[in-house]
């Protein structure tokens, strides 16, 4: 049984999101067994140029919608384009990144096409011709695997940094321009502007390295130390709920069940005890370093490397030693 797949390529600031390649990788897995095709849909200002980045990935076609009413994101405008393309091409599965845009758009599209919605998946594979998706529930305290019941089109959002990115295979995929028919009048909720986060560091959900501080940071000013280490590694600064609730750090960088769920290559937990609700947000990080005074802190049970010691002593030394080798 062939599964045709549609990949949504998200464009932010005229740039195709890196995770589009992860989605193409996932789509190949789902299509591969039955010889199905993989298409991509790229929407927004600069979509045509952004689509060039994946023309040599063996896709069947890339649909591009970049008319003016789509230059700012709107759930309704983008959902219409996705739903129209799904109705036209009838893919079995539609893959989006589990990003702010994908998580907003996915369920709306699934409802519009009378489909099925799987959110925030960390893995997809084919079994018996069907997609089996794996996703965390209870903030990753446990996991489930699920399949669709029946043949409705299945929208799936996939978390960044989980599926291996596809590699280019050469060739030049045809690009099809799509006139969306979306008008300003049709869109009732429209993005009127973007306010960037202060600091200029990557977002914790997108960073390869995160240096996080807990209650033991004692003060807002002490986060400077973590920023220095994070900047050295090109990473983001995170914080535990205890640190945010104590006013040491702002909520947008909170990692955990009521904050961001992160999955970096390296997570450095400084003075974080490892409360279950924090672990839920970062436990899938590839490598976890824990620095804590208390040798019995639960964070050590999840860590890859641990140092028992005073973070105010260890972190600056770590920064110094890193400077010597980087």
């Amino acid at each position: 049984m062939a599964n045709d797949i549609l990949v949504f390529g998200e464009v932010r600031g005229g740039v195709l999101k890196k995770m589009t390649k992860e989605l193409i990788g996932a789509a190949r897995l789902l299509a591969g067994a039955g010889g199905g095709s993989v298409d991509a849909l790229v929407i927004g200002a600069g979509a045509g140029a952004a689509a060039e980045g994946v023309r040599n990935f063996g896709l069947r076609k890339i649909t591009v919608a970049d008319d003016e009413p789509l230059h700012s994101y709107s759930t309704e405008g983008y959902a219409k384009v996705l739903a129209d393309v799904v109705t036209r091409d009838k893919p079995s599965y539609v893959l989006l990144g589990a990003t702010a845009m994908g998580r907003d758009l996915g369920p709306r599209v699934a409802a519009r096409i009378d489909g099925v919605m799987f959110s925030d998946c960390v893995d997809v594979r084919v079994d018996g011709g069907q997609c089996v998706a794996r996703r965390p529930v209870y903030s990753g305290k446990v996991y489930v695997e699920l399949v669709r019941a029946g043949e409705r089109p299945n929208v799936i959002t996939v978390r960044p940094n989980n599926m291996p990115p596809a590699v280019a295979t050469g060739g030049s995929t045809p690009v099809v321009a799509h006139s969306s028919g979306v008008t300003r009048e049709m869109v009732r909720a429209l993005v009127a502007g973007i306010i960037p986060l202060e600091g200029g560091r990557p977002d914790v959900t997108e960073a390869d390295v995160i240096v996080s501080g807990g209650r033991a940071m004692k003060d807002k000013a002490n986060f400077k130390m973590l920023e220095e280490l994070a900047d050295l590694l090109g990473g983001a600064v995170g914080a535990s709920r205890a640190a945010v609730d104590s006013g040491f750090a702002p909520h947008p960088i909170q990692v955990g069940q009521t904050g961001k769920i992160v999955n970096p290559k390296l997570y450095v937990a400084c003075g974080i005890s490892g409360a279950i609700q924090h672990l839920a947000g970062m436990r899938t990080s590839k490598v976890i370093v824990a620095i804590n005074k208390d040798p019995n802190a639960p964070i050590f049970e999840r860590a890859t490397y641990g140092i028992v010691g005073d973070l105010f002593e260890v972190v600056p030394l770590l920064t110094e030693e890193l400077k010597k080798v980087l």
Partner: protein
Amino acid sequence: MKIIALLKRVPDTEAKILINPEGTGIKEDGIKFVINPYDEYAVEEALRLKEKTGGDGKVTVVCMGPEESTELIRTALAMGADDAVHVCDAALAKPDAFVSAAVLAKVAKDEGFDIIFCGKQAIDDDMAQVHSIMAEMLDVPQVNVAVAFEIAADRARATIRRRIEGGDERVETSLPAVISCEKGLNEPRYASLPGIMKAKKKEIRRKTLADLGFPGVPGEARSRITRWFPLPKSGGVKMVQADEPRDAAKELVRLLREEAKVI
């Protein structure tokens, strides 16, 4: 204004979650259940909007869930909500997202609304989809992950800051609309003693599927969970020990470069 706040009963964030012996779900005994934390922001924002717009404004809490949800609905009423609809039906024990959305949409339609506030996701199944599906069924716009909300003077529009990667989007929407709430939007109030006393007299309208006019569960399950499993155990920690902290730091840098190869 007619304001609806959606509320769901979920396990506390500190709860230890274990899979039941049958492997069909989680062990519920011994778990403390609370109002979904993101729904608390929804209730609070609903109350603030009512206080700001005054007049004959009304906040109705809508909850779909088991019998035990009643005490949590009372908490929301004690915070200041005016009344509540509790959809409680054995046939809705494990509802599909589309079923939940259809039921909630029907309640919203019956009650009438200018705005629906809800949490950005429930922290049990973490799907973050029921409210967006419901918005589509109601044919109203949605704005997800709100961290700031401001009603326009004409009360027909609102401006919302919605959290995205590395910043916020400023979204302008017409009303009615569905707004899902993120931490940081507000600081939910505690129920006051007079509030708790008053809440006892407030009306909670219990509804079954039949009461809502559904002949049965609206729609079949669109997906099936084939397996529940715990997170694989971690490989164990390697403690970096040295007499001097500097040596420990040096060794850690070496391990990260040579063994883990992450820097």
